[in-house]
């Protein structure tokens, strides 16, 4: 119980640290929210008045403290760009990004595990060699470019979906999922390649272990050894990696949402940073950070479970 409490404490501390960094970041980067709001009407006097009105004239630490306490009370603040509560601005966008990320993650898990095993099984066959090279190539394609290629091939040539015409979740869940499949592919393909490659490497290194040699000496075929002994052991580090990659996926969705015109958190984050709409940006940063931090924790725990000799906590 105490361990859980301690872990939760540390987790919250990390989130506090992240939001603190984000707060500082907005202090450092040029471009003041008042400038963006005032546009060509900017005069030092008006800016000063607006800063006071927005509470920006106060010390950054005071403002951070105020923000944190409000956030803990469930008050996420008011968006500068939209003059409405951040909660309102985020409404509906969280679900879209969550669905997209989960879909990509499921794709990664469902495809990369069998693929990684197959790559080892057919290591010396053409399938293994071609698969391995293809993997390397997939890993080398930037996701925004992959997004454009997928749009072109599946959207414009094969007409499997209409690029740019996203169906909102509440309108039709099936239609929405059908559209999101393509951005999910753009996110997951490079990750599938990485995971499969990792699993393959993990299996190969596991096969050098003594117990495998023992199994061989008992007359088991290579495939039997892989299937019965190796995969289970080799899978554990991969699971750790998969836990961490969900965080990575949430981050990649930022780019892919732009390409596929998906109205999710990613587009909002990018827009709010450009417009210096800090309340919105901070909220999204904290949300994404939560996913990353929680997933990293799980990864840590899993690593420990894999190899109890490792003492990380």
């Amino acid at each position, binding site marked *: 119980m105490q361990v859980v409490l301690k872990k939760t404490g540390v987790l919250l501390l990390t989130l506090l640290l992240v939001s603190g*960094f984000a707060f500082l970041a907005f202090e450092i980067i040029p471009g003041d929210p008042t400038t963006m709001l005032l546009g060509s009407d900017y005069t030092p006097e008006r800016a000063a008045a607006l800063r006071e009105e927005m509470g920006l004239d106060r010390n950054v630490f005071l403002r951070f403290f105020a923000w944190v306490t409000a956030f803990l009370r469930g008050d996420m603040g008011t968006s500068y760009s939209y003059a409405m509560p951040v909660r309102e601005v985020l409404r509906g966008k969280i679900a879209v990004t969550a669905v997209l990320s989960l879909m990509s993650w499921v794709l990664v898990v469902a495809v990369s595990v069998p693929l990684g095993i197959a790559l080892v099984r057919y290591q010396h066959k053409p399938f293994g060699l071609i698969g391995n090279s293809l993997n390397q190539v997939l890993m080398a394609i930037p996701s*925004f*470019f992959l997004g*454009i290629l997928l749009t072109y091939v599946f959207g414009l040539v094969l007409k499997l979906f209409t690029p740019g015409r996203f169906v909102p979740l509440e309108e039709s869940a099936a239609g929405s999922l059908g559209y999101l499949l393509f951005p999910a592919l753009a996110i997951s393909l490079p990750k599938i390649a*990485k995971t499969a490659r990792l699993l393959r490497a993990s299996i190969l290194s596991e096969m050098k272990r003594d117990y495998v040699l023992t199994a061989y000496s008992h007359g088991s075929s290579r495939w039997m050894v892989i299937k019965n002994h190796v995969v289970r052991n080799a899978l554990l580090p991969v699971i750790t990696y998969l836990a961490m990659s969900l965080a990575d996926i949430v981050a990649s969705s930022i780019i892919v949402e732009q390409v596929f015109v998906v109205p999710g958190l990613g587009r909002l984050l990018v827009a709010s940073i450009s417009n210096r709409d800090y309340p919105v940006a901070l909220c999204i940063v904290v949300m994404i950070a939560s996913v990353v*931090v929680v997933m990293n924790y799980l990864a840590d725990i899993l690593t420990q479970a894999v190899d109890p000799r490792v003492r990380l906590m």
Partner: protein
Amino acid sequence: MIDTKDRTFRVGAGITAFMLVLILLGALWTPYDPNAMNAAEKMASPSLRHLFGTDNFGRDIFSRVLQGTGSTFLIALCSVGLGLLAGLLIGGLTGFYGGWVDEVLMRLNDSVTAFPSLLLALVLIAVFHSGRYNIILALGIIFIPSFARIVRTEVARQKALDYVANAKLMGVKDMRILFVHIMPNILPVLLSSVAIGFNNAVLAEASMSYLGLGVQPPDASLGRMLSEAQTYLLRAPWYALFVGLAIVLLVLGFGLLSEGLGGDGHA
């Protein structure tokens, strides 16, 4: 199994050597001035005159690929190197000693990982100012957490092994154990993450250039050229194709090389 590795290594080495020759060639000579524009030859398709065709300003894409591969390679190599060095140091120490330092550094690490790289890049530009090679610093910093995490896990794993306990019993100093005994054992594991990092660097360079970090136009870099090429995907598909090919070869060569060297660790 041995000969597969060997073959992988040889293919990787061959591709990398080929790319290095191209980079060297690009540094010394290009068929055209990579920045020279020509209104009469905009968007020309590949021909003997222009091997890879020309871009929207009539610039020779082959010359630009030669030049761009060089700058991209340099940026990727240096930033991964920087991230790796810092990662080794941070991850090594925290993994070896554990305790509250480990806890604090790993939380810091988590915070940086969880931080949107767009915001991080903007902060770095504000601090270091935009410029041709500041991207190395920025990308290097972005890479530190992932390297540190891997190194930490590996060091912690190694620490529990007998040889470390033996060395301790023999009175070898901690630093010596860490850097002389443990590090060489985890390097192979790091190789694949270096390959992946190299890959990420090439890709990140494209988006960073757009924010004003890194190679500024009109100078060529593969990442920047790829984002330019996407505008002309329908009209001049060869533009994206040749640039993409250069990126793939660069990354592929490194990937195979690291795999051939035995880098099949846990990235």
